[in-house]
């Protein structure tokens, strides 16, 4: 089967969405997603809205152009619209006319607003996002007959590709946080061992006794063990620690 130019462009689009530097900007990725959709499908414009899972407040809003951005923002302001519906329900929305029911009934305030901008129908796909955020992508159309079920399937695949990249980044961020914690734990351990040595030499204690003294002192003064140890390792041993009678 010969590869068509469009198929090659689709493959490039998927690769572009998935293959990113580890520190990419999520908003930029979502913006690129809307651009890919507009380039590959017969839609006027595309927009993405990401909602906080608990509050349903918009976290990210982006779109392929200014018109669509305004339409996305209007949905957030009104609290109704196809993008918000598909994000909340985690369900795709088939091509739905805005010129009459069901669109005009389902979104009584958003539908007339979109119509004034020349949009006659919308469709949406949901975005599977990490950290339990909810997201949806809108496809805004002026000629809905040009958009098939297969086209919506392609839009969903592109949205999934972007979601994979976002999930991967979130995983890295989570692991980064864990690593930073672990490295700080190792830092603490090193100064604690050093402080044990300082106390053991200063007070002629065994290492175990020195550690015990360190812990008791930190606890009785509600100090962090690490901070006390770091101070001692710098040579600044609290006088009360050298003379326990105080």
């Amino acid at each position: 089967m010969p590869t068509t130019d469009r198929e090659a462009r689709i493959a490039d689009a998927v690769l572009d969405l998935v293959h990113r530097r580890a520190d990419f900007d999520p908003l930029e990725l979502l913006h690129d997603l809307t651009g890919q959709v507009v380039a590959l499908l017969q839609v006027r414009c595309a927009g993405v809205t990401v909602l906080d899972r608990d509050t349903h407040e918009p976290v990210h809003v982006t779109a392929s152009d200014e018109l669509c951005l305004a339409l996305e923002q209007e949905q957030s302001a009104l609290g109704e619209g196809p993008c918000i519906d598909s994000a909340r329900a985690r369900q795709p929305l088939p091509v739905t006319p805005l010129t009459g029911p069901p669109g005009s009934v389902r979104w009584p305030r958003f539908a007339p607003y979109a119509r004034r901008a020349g949009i006659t129908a919308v469709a949406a796909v949901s975005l599977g996002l990490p950290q339990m955020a909810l997201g949806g992508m809108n496809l805004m159309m002026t000629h809905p007959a040009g958009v098939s079920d297969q086209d919506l399937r392609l839009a969903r695949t592109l949205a999934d590709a972007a979601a994979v990249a976002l999930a991967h980044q979130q995983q890295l961020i989570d692991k980064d946080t864990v690593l930073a914690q672990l490295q700080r734990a190792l830092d603490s351990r090193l100064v604690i061992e050093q402080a044990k040595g300082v106390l053991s030499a200063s007070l002629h204690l065994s290492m175990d006794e020195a550690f015990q003294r360190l812990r008791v002192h930190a606890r009785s003064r509600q100090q962090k063990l690490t901070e006390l140890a770091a101070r001692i390792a710098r040579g600044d041993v609290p006088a009360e620690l050298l003379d326990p009678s105080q």
Partner: protein
Amino acid sequence: MARDDLPGYLQRLRQAARTGADLSAAQAADAARLLRLDAVTLSLLPTRGPPELLWSDPADALGRALEDLQTTLGEGPTLDAARTGQTVTEADLSTASAARWPLFTPAACDTPARAVIAHPLLLGVVTAGVLTGYRITPGPLPARQRQEITRFARIALDLLLHTPPHALATGTGGPDLHRAEVHQAAGVLSVRLAISIDDALLRLRAHAWRHNQALPDVARAVITGHLRLDSHN
């Protein structure tokens, strides 16, 4: 576990990592045998300072000795991998260029180790630690073996990230900080000689180097008072 094959071993470790297991799920002796190495070590990088050895085979002194040598001399494959984030290999330490590690290479040749691979544990662009493998027979590591080491390193990083931070920080349970006594000895020396911890660490390393002793042995001698390390020795 003795008759296990590598794919099965990696599969089990991957499964363990998925359920939150830490490095205690993997024995360095098993890993070394299945990766066809004679010793493997895993070190974690602190925020500042050289890698700290956390995982090795307790029954095998070779890996620990070579890591201690690198800490003492301030150079070697593990340190290079930690600094550059690149895999570092040397196929034959006995014929290696003296320019690469002028102090480490001759010292390592006094041990049975001949080939080495130091694999950074990378998280995105951050180097978390280093997995180092040693082999007593010289010769380059075949591509397949290197791939297997990479695969193991990836799982080992996941296990490492499951280390309970509190246990590591206080030394209560958690992985064994191999050079704990070196840091204790630095504390002792800093009091005895009225110098900073960093200077005390330097003195410990200098003494180990000059007298061809293992760094932990020097540390123990300082702690027990057998070694004074003032300016006269």
